[in-house]
């Protein structure tokens, strides 16, 4: 079996802790900088466009910790493309 060089397990915590304090109906989620592919609309968190998982993750890894909010992934459909060395530049 071909050894998998990049055995990445991306842990994406579903972001429900946001800074929007006006919503009593559910966890406040803010849409931070959202990597876009295709016709993804960053202002519409119900958009079901497909997003490349690797590119999305790279953008997340590059985001700062403070002064920003977790990205809502509830409505995102991820497209997974095998790329064993996709994260070499981060490691």
């Amino acid at each position: 079996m071909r050894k998998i060089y990049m055995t990445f397990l991306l842990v994406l915590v579903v972001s429900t802790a946001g800074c929007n304090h006006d919503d009593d109906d559910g966890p406040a989620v803010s849409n931070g900088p959202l990597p876009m592919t295709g016709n993804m609309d960053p202002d519409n968190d119900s958009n079901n466009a497909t997003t490349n998982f690797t590119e999305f993750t790279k953008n997340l890894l590059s985001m700062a910790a403070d002064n920003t909010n977790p990205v809502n992934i509830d409505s995102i459909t991820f497209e997974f493309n095998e790329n064993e060395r996709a994260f070499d530049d981060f490691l």
Partner: protein
Amino acid sequence: MKYFPKGKVLGVGIAVSLALGSTLAGASSHREAPFITKSPKVDSTDFYLFRSYQAGSEANVTLIANYIPLQDPQGGPNYFSMDPNALYELHIDNDGDAVEDITFQFKFNNQIPNAGKGIELQIGAVGEKKTVAIPIKNIGGISNGNIANLNFTETYTVKMVTGGRRQGARTDVTKISDNSTTFGKPYDYVGNKTFTDKAGYAAYANNFIHDVNIPGCGTGKIFVGQRKDSFVVNLGETFDLVNYVPIEGDSAAGAGDAGGFAGGITQNTVNDDLAGKNITTIAIELPISCVKSASSDIIGAWTTASLRQARVLNPRSTFSKPSVVGGAWTQVSRLSNPLVNELVIGLRDKDRFNSSEPNEDGQFATYVTHPTLPAILDVLFNAPVNATLGLTGTVNEIANLAPANFPRGDLVATFLTGFDGVNANGSVAEMIRLNTAIATTAKGAQSTFGVAGGDLAGFPNGRRPGDDVVDIALRVVMGALCHDLPIGAGGAPANLLLCAEDAATAKSMAPVGTVAFTDGAPLSDADFDSVFPYLRTPVAGSPN
């Protein structure tokens, strides 16, 4: 007819931590949600908020947040360090809007000495020796001032944030001694060959109680380190469908006379399944004047832990780079009142609760106003209770052990809003609230039942380590607040009228509200120290 206390806002509802405490209660919040069980280092277990009762410190408030549940003292070779990729926070709301006004952020750093190579030994024949790193965290004894044999060190920084936790102004908390910003954390209590004896470990760990400058408002103390688990609970039997009779079997707790409920459990330390466990404590003491607002003596507080939203594992993992992380801080753990997420929130929503903020608690309203635990207890114990009391088939048979006052205004007041004239501050959210103007009760005189025992300095007005929240919460959820409490003038009985508009009706709502529910695991202020950080020296991994 439904009754809800006047002036109380029901609509928002909140995850009330009512402990359904002892029964079905596990630890205060140990491994309470599915997702957090995968990340024990960021799993909060208990949270305390109280006016400092150390002699001479009464002008201060102490916040304690415990993490990493169910630590077996023998957990070598790595024992229990905090997560360097996590952000641990203690939040304070002092204006009653259920949003943090002050946050203390703790971030940890782990290091191996010798420039990251660790302690090394020369191994091999003379002339052919090789330099080899050791596999353990200490190679010899450790004592106060002698840490040369330590192969692992853990430090942390603390920032005080005023305003929102992510956008507020951040300022370093510094040591009084040298204004440095890095604090040391003691190595865990691995055993007595390393530390000589318990006194030796205590002396070593006490060296890590830091006197600090609190930005903009005076001085305080900080300690982060392993402590003996401060929570006491009959864990195993409780979660086995309450495999005991959860009512005091003696005439009074500790009487030893079997003069209470027939077959009921009696107080015994053997009932505490956490007696041999440790946790890691984050403790901070600071002036009340630093945390309260000019307009109110009441503060609310809670703890959270967050991880970066994205993580990529390193297939060639090293000590310094097991993974790379990025993205915004994403909350994965939350705790204020004990036992909320364990026993009130439904299984399908426990992870959501952990990622939610107090001002979002309206989504959990129904769990509070219509709690399931009393109904579960009725299913388990209705028949045997009636049988024991000889009421089965009689006109006095108890139809339902669970309180009937819906929505449960008593629970809302206890955990959602606080009590008028005691610790209510206008906020409606699940959090511990402390009235900092209420005087402390000295160690030795504290009631283990807090306010319900006539001790206004105790739970639910804040929470002290010696408050038996399991027994308190169990009794409250089964309707204790529908009955008279010794809170009138001079300790006279008085009814809070939280369950009905008149005392007689209120009492009728809770047929077993005066029953001495208990899990049989005793707790009191005698189990804790009289000085900061109050929680005791951990259990040794090797006591010999």
